[in-house]
């Protein structure tokens, strides 16, 4: 084999780099996130009123895009009212609508975002709700 030594060293380095994340975490798995919707604000609502602006599955998959659109509609177009698919109307506001119900940012936002290692910059500016230490 030409340059056998070099190739073998290269292969070892490559394997090392590729497996590093697994070796580094020691094969542990992070607990699956479990976002909670049991904030006092939500529990105050009647059972059949406990609904987000759009269905749960849609919110789970598309909330980031929805927030981006809300942002542009409010800041750029001056439209502040969102009529949901069920006909209910909401004021489009992260701080004043979303987080009024989901007042548990640590449990509701951060847990999934940490798990999937995304770092949304919403909270660089937007003020997070005050959470009671539990």
């Amino acid at each position, binding site marked *: 084999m030409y340059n056998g030594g070099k190739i073998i060293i290269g292969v070892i380095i490559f394997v090392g780099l590729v497996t590093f994340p697994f070796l580094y975490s020691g094969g542990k798995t992070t607990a699956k996130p479990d976002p909670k919707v049991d904030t006092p604000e939500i529990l105050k609502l009647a059972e059949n009123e406990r609904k987000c602006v759009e269905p749960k599955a849609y919110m789970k998959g598309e909330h980031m895009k929805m927030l981006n659109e809300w942002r542009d509609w409010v800041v750029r177009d001056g439209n*502040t009212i969102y009529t949901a698919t069920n006909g209910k109307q909401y004021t489009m506001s992260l701080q004043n609508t979303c987080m009024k119900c989901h007042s548990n940012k640590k449990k509701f936002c951060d847990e999934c975002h940490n798990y999937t290692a995304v770092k949304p910059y919403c909270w660089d500016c937007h003020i997070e709700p005050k959470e009671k230490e539990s």
Partner: protein
Amino acid sequence: MSMNRREFLKIAGISTILGLGGVSAVHGLRNRVEASQISPAPKALKAKRWAMVVDMSKFKKEEDYQRCIDACHQVHNVPNITDNPKHEIKWLWKETYEHAFPGTEDEYLSEEIKHLPFLVLCNHCDNPSCVRVCPTKATFKRKSDGIVMMDMHRCIGCRFCMAACPYGARSFNYKDPIPFINEAKKNLEFPTRTKGVVEKCTLCYERLATGLQPACVEASKGALIFGDIEDPNSGVRKVLGARYSFRRRPELGTRPSVYYII
């Protein structure tokens, strides 16, 4: 087909770039939220073009100015940066006559007028030079009511708008502003800003949307008159029709929407 390694790599590289670009373009189109069910709030205040008249005859005491400034800065979480005046953030502030209206003073002007403080803010120009220069449309003139808006999400912090504004109305966040906001007086309904973006008066677009007058106008006890300049029956038009008014640097063609009467 004969192809050497060099050509193969070139073609492979170019197809990868095109492929990735194409996929992301399709992705972007497909995933827009399928919703056009949006509308302005029914009780929102509406105008063709908002304007403000500053009635200087009603600003007599220090307190008359401070009340307006505090109302604005508190409701918008404007940081109070005192450790370095170079990094100051101002939306609404006092400027003496000689600085607010440079070039109009003469050598025999009384000291009193020369140093008379005027309340100044973004002029929400009808022909804004800041909007013309912004490379990302982060600052733009709202078509609906002429407000010169700031989209702090989009601003890249190039500060071209600060060079273009002849009124010094724009402030840049040279550092994280949050430590300089009084925690006790923080308005939890309005965002703060992050370092590296430009900010300025937005004519309280968020209050107008809920049917409220701008915070400074509300606090001014009639010294600031606010209304639609294109409506001949509005308060601002009545004042402007009855009294002599002037604007800051009208010769620059920016057509400010803030008027002063003495």
